[in-house]
């Protein structure tokens, strides 16, 4: 079964009762049950308008639509690879929507949902996976850093940027994304140590999607990940990562604390990677179908949909309009992808340095001359 097929199954059904709660997790912050029921949490009140709720639904649905389209494009040979966020939409949209405009986000390679909330054009993300560039968006204008593929490296960048915010007296914070696997990297732990030492306004947002490619979370930690933070001297909290409201509330609170000078927070968004690690991966080698089935019942989009329907916040027309918007988005992504021009060969040389070196200028010239020598030869 492809990720694409899984998706269609997952989005639609309104989850019944019987959707299992996450076992034995009293510490898990939840504001929306898997059945779509709104619950309160003593520490995390969330004031959210109906408009905002519909907006969150729209985000989730469009991001998934984008993801499905990208997976399809990869299957058809238009992308080299795609890292699907299937199942993690709520964690990403919740976190992204918690950001203030001047906050700066530092994604991994899977935060398409956060990119969406920062106004990054999906085609600028697609271009990376198509091999056209390393990400086509402007990280300064969007306040959304380029993707970082080396696991964990960006957590230090987020911490350093936060130290810059402190020096500027800016009332902003940074949001560093990382995976469960990333928590084992030395650099990630250093980032937490630095953040604690300097009380830097950075929030570490860890999507624990239960796997680092094939390796289950148990191999990275024998205690819940959110507990790591206490060892470094700052708060850690575990939130239901498939509950967009809880994620929004918890991330907002952590960012607010950071901006106020209370230092870092570690958020563990407990979620599940419903698709493969990337389109190159084959999850049947390392996990049981039953596990996926169980998690489908906690689907983040179905959950919000159920809530909106039951609470009368959105009706069939609304859902249909979002679907239609999704189709348009998908069409735009598809067309934009297949029409995306290849980069010029000279791009190889043009951005290595801010001040070009004579040697590289020479190599560029040779390159141009060499390729010109083939012209008319049918090469």
């Amino acid at each position, binding site marked *: 079964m492809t990720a694409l097929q899984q998706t269609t199954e997952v989005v639609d059904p309104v989850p019944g009762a019987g959707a299992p709660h996450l076992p034995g997790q009293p510490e898990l912050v939840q504001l929306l049950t898997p059945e779509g029921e709104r619950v309160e949490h003593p520490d995390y009140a969330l004031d959210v308008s109906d408009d905002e709720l519909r907006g969150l639904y729209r985000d989730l649905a469009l991001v998934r639509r984008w993801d499905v389209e990208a997976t399809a494009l990869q299957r058809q040979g238009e992308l*080299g*690879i795609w890292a699907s966020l299937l199942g993690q939409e709520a964690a990403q949209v919740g976190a992204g929507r918690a950001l203030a405009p001047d906050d700066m986000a530092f994604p991994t*390679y899977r935060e398409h949902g956060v990119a969406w909330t920062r106004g990054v054009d999906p085609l600028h993300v697609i271009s*990376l*996976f*198509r*091999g*056209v*560039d*390393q990400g086509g968006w402007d990280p300064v204008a969007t306040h959304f850093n380029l993707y970082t*593929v*080396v*696991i964990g490296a960006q957590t230090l960048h987020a911490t350093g940027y936060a130290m810059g915010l402190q020096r500027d007296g800016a009332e902003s914070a940074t949001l560093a994304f990382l995976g469960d*696997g*990333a928590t*084992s*990297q*030395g*650099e990630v732990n250093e980032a937490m140590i630095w953040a604690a030492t300097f009380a830097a306004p950075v929030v570490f947002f860890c999507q624990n999607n239960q796997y*680092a*490619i*094939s*390796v289950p979370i148990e*191999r*990275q930690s024998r205690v819940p990940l959110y507990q790591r933070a206490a060892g470094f001297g700052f708060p850690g909290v575990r939130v239901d990562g498939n509950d967009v409201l809880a994620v929004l509330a918890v991330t907002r609170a952590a960012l607010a604390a950071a901006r106020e000078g209370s230092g870092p927070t570690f958020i563990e968004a407990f979620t599940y990677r419903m698709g493969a690690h990337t389109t*190159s*991966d*084959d999850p049947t*080698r*390392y996990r049981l179908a039953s596990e996926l089935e169980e998690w489908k019942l906690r689907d983040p989009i179905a959950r919000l949909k159920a809530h909106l329907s039951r609470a009368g916040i959105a009706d069939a027309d609304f859902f249909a309009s979002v679907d239609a918007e999704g189709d348009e988005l998908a069409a735009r992504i598809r067309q934009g992808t297949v029409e995306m021009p*290849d*980069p010029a*060969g000279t*791009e*190889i*040389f043009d951005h*290595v340095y801010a001040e070009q070196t004579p*040697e*590289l200028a020479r*190599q560029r010239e040779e*390159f141009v001359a*060499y*390729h010109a020598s*083939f012209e008319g030869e049918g*090469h």
Partner: protein
Amino acid sequence: MAETLTIGKALNLGLRKAMEDDAKVVLMGEDIGKLGGVFRITDGLQKDFGEARVVDTPLAEAGILGTAVGLAMRGYRPVCEIQFDGFVFPAYNQIVTQVAKIHARSKGRLQMPIVIRIPFGGGIGAVEHHSESPEAYFAHTAGLKVVAVSTPADAYWGIQQAIAAPDPIVFLEPKRRYWEKGAVDTDTAPGPLFGSRVVRGGDDVTVLAYGPMVKTALQAAEAAAEEGRSLEVIDLRTVSPLDLDPVFDSVRRTGRCVVVHEAPVTLGLGAEIAARVTETCFHSLEAPVLRVGGYDTPYPPSKLEEEYLPDLDRVLDAVDRSLGF
């Protein structure tokens, strides 16, 4: 016994053989267990040898190499898989300051029979950090040895030879050639691990390559032959130590030499080889040693990798320039 195997499968079988032969061999790496590694090189090994001998590690390369050092001190022979070339750098401190130096530090009392397997090089259409050629970093590091295989037979035998060797070895696997097939004689090794090999005789220009570029060099030789030019192709096989005696012999005959690798030219292996060949064969050279390699830039997005990577045409171009001197 002669079998036809891909490089990937030959590595898999070679690892299996090494594990059967020596119970102290332990494989470590990310996703090498149930998944069998992202390239499936360790496919089936955890199932047959258990989790204690095929270890899915935490996601931490310094941890992989650092614990390998400890295991080696305890008498084990760790074989570490780095998932992609670009992810070896978190382990760099352990490799350069510990793995490479502990034998000397201990005056030989502690051996470090660690193999660091790295699928290296480009050409597979991957995203950033998945297509690099970091061999010069290791070849410049005293205490390490570095080899690069180019055929299924060298893969099958080389991995076993590397595991059996007493020194730490960076074992480079030409990832874009994993699926290429060749004959493997599973009874007799094709030669020692640290030796280069003339893989095609010729008289006009000596072309040197290792790993994925050997095939490219051979293709160039084929094409050149059609134009009446005779290239001698040498598969270096060992990057550190270099085995240049066959190269010197060849260059003394041809008077011309071209080195090909994917790594950036500046301070790539071609630099060292050019320096040594020139020093040793100074009076025989009719042209300077020319280098064909990656440009001095980060590895580009995959849509540009064909332009970046040395190919048949760029090798022939260098051959022309050499002959033009």
